[in-house]
């Protein structure tokens, strides 16, 4: 392999790689603003200037192709003074409003001003003023003063979102960014420009001014918006999710996520209709009861039915662990073969970039976990038919609002003698339920999802519940999480009384006199890897941050509800 030298260190490169790419592959960061690994090279910020031996002038590392035997200096006097000069130019017109700016704390310009700037400005004239608070689109706000004209956002829309909406206008120090006439920055991936903006020029309107980044804790997990399973970070403060940002995984979502996933997949967690504690229907109303009471009631009610009169629905919204225990519970505790789960397909949601038409995160996982009718059991349509005919009288539904997609089922569910559900929020199905167990959301539990590619990925708890303690569970903790006491108002965030579905089923099984011996999600997964071929040899450490592609397995094609 060819090699070149950078600051006295020989590094290998692939033919065609630029200096900045080769350096990055070898763990050397050359400072840059406009260059992004997934966007075309623009070369306008000049921050990556390096000295190359035998070249008359400094060159930009982002567009200079590495060559055999090249000798590059990042730390020569010439290169250092060039970076100082570039930083001084940037800071001439950049406002000193870090106290107001949301990017503060995760700002490239701040970081580089610290690392590569002399810390003094010779500029005494008036800074330029451009438009502030420009609503580029429904979710993105633009501040012209802060923009350093790197063009990352423009290139993102052109090249990744494939929807050219942004452009530079004017010249010189008046240059600014705007949308094309009559256009809005409203493509389904628009908010990624907020992440790639190296300064605070583009901000997330949903998160604007909500919290300082250094006050928050962040947890690596998986988006539950569709079957893609984009790798994300959940950012929390005071036990509340405030924003989601994408996390790099080349196999799944690269650096991106869609706006639907970013905005619509966490607000239900703290919504007013969240279920806090088990509920039981008494005289027509759902009333909050204790766990033991709910378990005892559910157990005695379930025992009143014959094995063939009970059906169980798993869920593509629940984890593999939940579904695995559900299948086990249905088959060995309830003894029923009427076991299936509902597929949620929305062809209008899918696209060619990230969004998948399967709008649940774990359809493949539920299938692999064994949530399928046994030989003489009914599938979902069969169960519906059997309820209509009065053959099935009791139904258990795991984490799925089955009425939401299909209101016609209301009459069917009304015919049941017993409906038990695990749900995170009160919904159309819970309105008919007799017993409601509060299910932890994907942000409150450990587990795995299998995406549409057959890749198993880990979700981790970002929020504490009555069941999951932040410190004991080893969850990510901010300074405020660590030192808050019950007397501090900033540490009194709501803790819901909810449990993972697998744990609820373990409790219910025990109330029915049968032991499912699981204490933590990892133990469930251990059992899964021992009993299901596709998961053989896997554990949570192997799956790690980026997930593992499962060995090819024959999967049933998805059926529309």
């Amino acid at each position, binding site marked *: 392999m060819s090699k070149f030298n950078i600051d006295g260190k020989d590094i290998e490169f692939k033919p065609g790689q630029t200096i900045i790419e080769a350096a990055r592959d070898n763990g050397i960061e050359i400072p840059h603003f406009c260059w992004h690994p997934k966007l075309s090279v623009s070369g306008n910020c000049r921050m990556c200037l390096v000295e190359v031996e035998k070249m008359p002038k400094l060159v930009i590392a982002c567009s200079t192709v590495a060559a055999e035997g090249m000798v590059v200096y990042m730390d020569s006097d010439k290169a250092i003074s060039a970076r100082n000069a570039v930083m001084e130019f940037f800071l001439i017109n950049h406002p000193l409003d870090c*106290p*107001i700016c949301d990017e503060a704390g995760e700002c490239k310009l701040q970081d580089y001003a610290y690392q590569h700037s002399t810390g003094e400005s010779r500029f005494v004239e008036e800074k330029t003023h451009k438009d502030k*608070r420009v609503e580029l689109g429904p979710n993105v706000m633009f501040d012209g003063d802060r923009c350093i004209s790197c063009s990352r956002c423009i290139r993102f829309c052109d090249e990744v979102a494939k929807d050219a909406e942004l452009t530079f206008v004017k010249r010189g120090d008046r240059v600014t960014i705007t949308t094309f006439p009559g256009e809005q920055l409203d493509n389904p991936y628009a908010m990624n420009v907020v992440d790639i903006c190296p300064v605070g020029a583009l901000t997330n309107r949903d998160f604007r001014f909500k919290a*300082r980044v*250094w*006050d928050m804790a962040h947890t690596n997990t998986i988006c539950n918006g569709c079957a893609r399973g984009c790798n994300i970070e959940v950012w929390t403060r005071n036990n509340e999710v405030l924003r989601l940002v994408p996390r790099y995984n080349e196999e799944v979502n690269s650096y991106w996520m869609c706006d639907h996933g970013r905005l619509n997949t966490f607000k239900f967690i703290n919504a007013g209709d969240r279920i806090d504690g088990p509920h039981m229907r008494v005289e027509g109303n759902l009333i909050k009861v204790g766990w033991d009471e709910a378990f005892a009631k559910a157990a005695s009610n379930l025992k009143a039915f014959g094995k063939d009169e009970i059906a169980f629905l798993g869920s593509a919204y629940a984890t593999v662990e939940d579904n695995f225990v559900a299948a086990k519970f249905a088959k060995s505790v309830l003894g029923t073969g009427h076991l299936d789960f509902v597929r949620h397909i929305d062809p209008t949601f899918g696209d060619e970039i990230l969004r998948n038409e399967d709008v649940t995160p774990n359809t493949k996982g539920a299938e692999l976990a064994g949530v399928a009718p046994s030989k003489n059991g009914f599938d979902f349509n069969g169960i519906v038919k059997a309820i209509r005919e009065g053959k099935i009288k009791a139904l258990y539904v795991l984490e799925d609002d089955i009425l939401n997609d299909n209101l016609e089922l209301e009459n069917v569910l009304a015919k049941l003698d017993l409906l038990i559900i695990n749900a995170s929020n009160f919904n159309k199905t819970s309105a008919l339920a007799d017993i409601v167990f509060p299910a932890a959301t994907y942000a409150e539990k450990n587990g795995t999802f299998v995406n549409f590619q057959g890749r198993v990925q880990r979700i981790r708890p970002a929020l504490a519940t009555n069941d999951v303690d932040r410190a004991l569970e080893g969850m990510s903790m901010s*300074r405020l999480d660590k*030192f808050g006491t019950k007397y*501090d108002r900033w540490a009194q965030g709501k803790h819901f009384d909810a449990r993972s579905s697998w744990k609820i089923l373990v409790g219910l099984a025990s109330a029915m006199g049968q032991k499912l011996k699981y204490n933590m999600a990892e133990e469930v997964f251990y059992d899964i890897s021992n009993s299901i071929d596709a998961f053989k040899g896997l554990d949570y450490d192997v799956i790690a941050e980026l997930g593992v592609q499962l060995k090819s397995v024959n999967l049933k094609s998805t059926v529309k509800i």
Partner: protein
Amino acid sequence: MSGNNIPPKKRIKDLTFGEKIYIPEIVKGLSLTLRTMFKPKFTMEYPEEKFIPAGSYRGRPVLVEEKNGEERCVACGLCSRVCPALAIEVQAAETDREKERYPEKFEINMLRCIFCGFCEEVCPEEAIVMSKDYELAFSNREDAIYGKDKLLVPVDQLQDRIDFLRNYK
């Protein structure tokens, strides 16, 4: 041991002859009392009389309220970050004013506050300063959390401190 070289110390409680006879010492003491009785008093009869500290005094931290009734604070959260006792909670929100960010909620837990003045030192807007107020009494934990209603103080009343900061910091 080398301790042998050190001469024995005279013990302080060894009294001289004059002290031993007692009466002259009594007279000395009484005359001091008598002289002090006619000198000017230094004791301040608090709370009837109040101590007004100099500008350098670090009393409870307060927020500066401009003449137009608005706070200077832009809710950057640096005071909250630097506070070694985690006494300060700031919640920012958006406003139509020129500085687009303001503190929707600003609370200082006076049970946590240690009057170090770091918040004042770090503030980029000179919006939080140490006041001359040292009278802090509360009977429960909730009362000890001061919100914007108690924290905002008109800039006129804080001029001493602001002048001190400008001259000496």
